[in-house]
């Protein structure tokens, strides 16, 4: 039998001085495609980065690529977020910068970025065009990187990896931010490259995988175990049965009957119309699901509500009963809502601790800039315990694994018990257990008259309380419906 492609013996890896992987062993033979699972913080990303040669470790890791193959003899790692840069190679972007128009564009277009990548790796541009089309991305070729939504960044990242066709391709959270159809297309493309010789390692808790994935592993207590295909990640969390902190059980201060009212709202960038004649009313206490494929205008719609879009001032819409642009500040708006989104996560102040992060929810700031009073501190601590984050309280958020980061930011979102919750793919990066658990928390919170707008692609992972759905397509409202029965399971 030929040599294994990856042969790991007694791998030890530390992350910020804490042991993550302990004497881990793994053999990946030619032709094998693996799925890697594990609870948040189990070390999936660390292991992937070690294989790709991106982090130091102890122990032995040998790789044997097929010398006969035409595919590049590399292990290529695709991170869970695309770190793009401006034309000068910097990546100092800030939250919601993409909505502010400045006459001189400083980031490359998708097309230029791909051409550059193709040149570097000697790839045919026509191959990329096919992938771009297959992922429904063609009309964005002339958009600049900063204008893309998180799902669109993910697609660009995937196009680059699929185009490269390395002998070993490791994708961390391949489905994050992708709509249902794109996930389906992605699986077809993964199937194709796997048939052509690329071996896959996917890191995901998703259940709809390409059929070529036939081996499954879980990291637990620093070691790797092979598991059955249909095994749930079992992780009993003692927080599940804990009662919700009492201050979150109170009815939030409700400002009026109508929370959001949009009348013929339009947003365009130059000639490109992103939202067209949107009419939508959200009444106090309603629980909405906002859906639409990638690029349908969901993020833009939400950015209007959260006070983050400059074009809000040119439109006719009402927030909490007041016409937008009638003298209120964005801080007046933000104090009534709790928000989480992939973008907020990405641009969040990385130098804040978990406790500071959660406390900053009282002030709607990214990072904590003032000394909170006693009540706020007590409430934050209660919530930290409830979320099972006690031991991470004083750890910097950016030193935590993705799932724990998310949990801290979710704590920030709800800590002030706001009257409106906007949860834009809140469970990205959480494992199944955490997702279920968080959705139950949302249900609890929403019992007391809280208004909810929830964005999620995965029907199976929604809170039970959702009762209405608005569907966007190409910037228009495609349908508005009551979905009392259909979604919750």
């Amino acid at each position, binding site marked *: 039998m030929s040599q294994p492609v990856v042969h790991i013996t007694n791998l030890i890896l530390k992350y910020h001085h804490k042991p993550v992987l302990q004497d881990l062993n793994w053999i990946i033979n030619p032709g094998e495609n693996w799925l890697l699972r594990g609870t948040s913080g189990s070390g999936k990303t660390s292991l992937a980065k070690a294989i790709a040669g991106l982090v130091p470790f102890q122990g032995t890791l040998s790789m044997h690529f097929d010398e006969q193959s035409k595919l590049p003899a590399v292990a290529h790692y695709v991170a869970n977020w695309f770190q793009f840069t401006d034309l*000068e190679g*910097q*990546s*100092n972007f*800030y*939250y*919601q*910068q993409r909505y*502010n*128009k*400045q*006459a*001189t564009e400083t980031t490359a277009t998708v097309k230029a970025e791909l051409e550059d990548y193709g040149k570097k790796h000697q790839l045919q541009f026509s191959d990329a065009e096919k992938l771009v089309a297959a992922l429904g991305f063609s009309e964005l070729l002339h958009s600049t990187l900063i204008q893309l939504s998180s799902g669109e960044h993910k697609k660009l990242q995937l196009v680059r990896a699929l185009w490269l066709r390395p002998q070993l391709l490791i994708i961390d959270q391949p489905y994050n931010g992708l709509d249902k159809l794109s996930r389906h297309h992605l699986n077809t493309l993964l199937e194709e490259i796997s048939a052509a010789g690329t071996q896959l390692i996917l890191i995901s808790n998703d259940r709809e995988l390409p059929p070529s994935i036939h081996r499954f592993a879980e990291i637990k207590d620093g070691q790797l175990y092979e598991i059955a295909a249909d095994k749930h990640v079992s992780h009993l969390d003692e927080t599940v049965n804990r009662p919700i902190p009492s201050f979150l059980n109170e009815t939030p201060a409700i400002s009026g009957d109508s929370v959001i009212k949009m009348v013929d709202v339009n947003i365009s960038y130059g000639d490109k119309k992103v939202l067209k004649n949107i009419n939508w009313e959200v009444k106090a206490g309603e629980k909405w699901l906002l859906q639409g494929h990638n690029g349908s205008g969901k993020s833009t719609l939400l950015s209007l509500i959260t*006070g*983050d879009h*400059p*074009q809000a*001032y*040119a439109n006719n819409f009402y927030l909490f009963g007041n016409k937008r642009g009638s*003298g*209120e*500040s*964005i*801080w*007046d708006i933000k104090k009534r809502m709790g928000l989480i989104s992939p973008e907020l996560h990405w*641009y969040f*102040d990385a*130098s804040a601790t978990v406790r500071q992060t959660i406390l*900053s929810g009282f*002030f*709607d*700031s*990214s*990072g*904590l*800039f003032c000394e909170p009073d006693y009540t706020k501190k007590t409430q934050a601590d209660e919530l930290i315990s409830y979320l099972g984050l006690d031991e991470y309280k004083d750890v910097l958020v950016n030193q935590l694994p993705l799932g724990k980061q998310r949990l801290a930011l979710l704590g920030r979102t709800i800590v002030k018990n706001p009257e409106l919750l906007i949860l834009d793919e809140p469970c990205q990066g959480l494992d199944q257990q955490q997702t279920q658990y968080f959705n139950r928390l949302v249900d609890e919170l929403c019992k007391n008259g809280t208004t909810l707008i929830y964005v999620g692609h995965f029907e199976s992972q929604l809170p039970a309380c959702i009762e209405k759905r608005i569907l966007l397509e190409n910037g228009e409202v495609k349908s508005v419906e009551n979905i009392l029965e259909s979604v919750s399971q």
Partner: protein
Amino acid sequence: MSNYFNTLPLREKLNQLGVCDFMDSSEFLDGVNALKGKKLVIVGCGAQGLNQGLNLRDSGLNISYTLRKEAIEGKRDSWKNATENNFTVGTYEELIPDADVVINLTPDKQHTAVVNAIMPLMKKGATLLYSHGFNIVEEGMQIRKDITVIMVAPKCPGSEVRAEYVRGFGVPTLIAVHPENDPEGKGLVQAKAYCVGTGGHRAGVLKSSFVAEVKSDLMGEQTILCGLLQTGSILSFDKMIEKGIDAGYASKLVQYGVEVITEALKQGGITAMMDRLSNVAKIKAFEISQELKTIMRPLFQKHQDDIMSGEFSRTMMEDWAAGDKNLLAWRAATGETAFEKTPAGNVKIGEQEYFDNALLMVAFIRAGVELAFETMVEAGIKPESAYYESLHETPLIANTIARKKLFEMNRVISDTAEYGCYLFDHACKPLLADFMTRVDTDLIGKNFNEGKDGSVDNRALIAVNEVIRSHEVEQIGAELRKAMTAMKSIKTV
């Protein structure tokens, strides 16, 4: 028009120079109320104009932009910036007559023309806001007596002003009221409300005067901020080339080194920057920087004297009149320096290496910051003001050098700063010629600690630490930095 400062009696000169108070956050409890419902019209829509306007509008204020007819008809960048973000844009004639506050965010050079064009259109009792006092103080612009004249100057580039605001913070800001133009006594209240509108009140506000702002701002930018960073970069690079260090390495060490070194300065002042060196290296850097201070002090004093007497602005305005003849020639010459023309090499330089292999740069920065601070304070400027215009801004300017070397620095700073920077650079290089002949690669290009056992005399080290730490710029800096809690750290390369 004659220089406003020079028309003042000495008593009043000292009075206006010596203003700079750090304002308590309780001063801002009234929020934006003083400007609520009023019409704010911004003249100019570049980086500062656009980003301040976005913040003010998001704070619930009524903002529109006025541009010259040609800019509107030609659909220039300023017009695009304003219209694409859904602001109302109009000519001076259309918007100024109804404006309660007119905000002049055009470049210094255009101020006289702009103010002469808008003043007759302004309604009685309106307010004129500047973000720099040059026009009032140095050119002596006289504003109609019914108009209130105030200044609000965010101490950061426009994009930072926006980035910090949207994360719920702000950038440190300086405000002032012109004593000759405060007929209704509303100037300070409006300036404070404007600060709340841009988010500056969350990051620390200094109450200054037009005079103090101009005289300290000019001094800082000419000497430590731009002048010395330029001189230090060029001399360090040239020395490495002369001594056979790889050009790509030398270029990268200087280009990114200033940023990495001054990041320590930003977090913890001169003390933190010097503490990044080993004990032996620190003592050496201390000794050279003392020497540099002695050599350069007369030049720093000359710059401060010329700024105070109005000599600097007089010669610069002559150059304006001559179509920027000197400025353009000097700019071109800077573009031709070897440092500018040598791209940074594709070598990995570790964060600590930027300190260990560039001891000379550390010494330059300590000498420059302390000299600028000392010279300003001796001239009657308050330490708070002197701190902002020296130590506080150095990392911000160093950041522009890291982006695209001196070209980028000189592009980002105002023409006024750029002009002063060249004046300093041209005088400083000959002054340091003799000193530089004694510099070898242990000070710049190679690790100073190499081949040394690292031992130092305890008493010598204690004495050096004492001098560094007890400097007034460190005392005031520690206090002011506490107030600016959450400064973002620059990503190192």
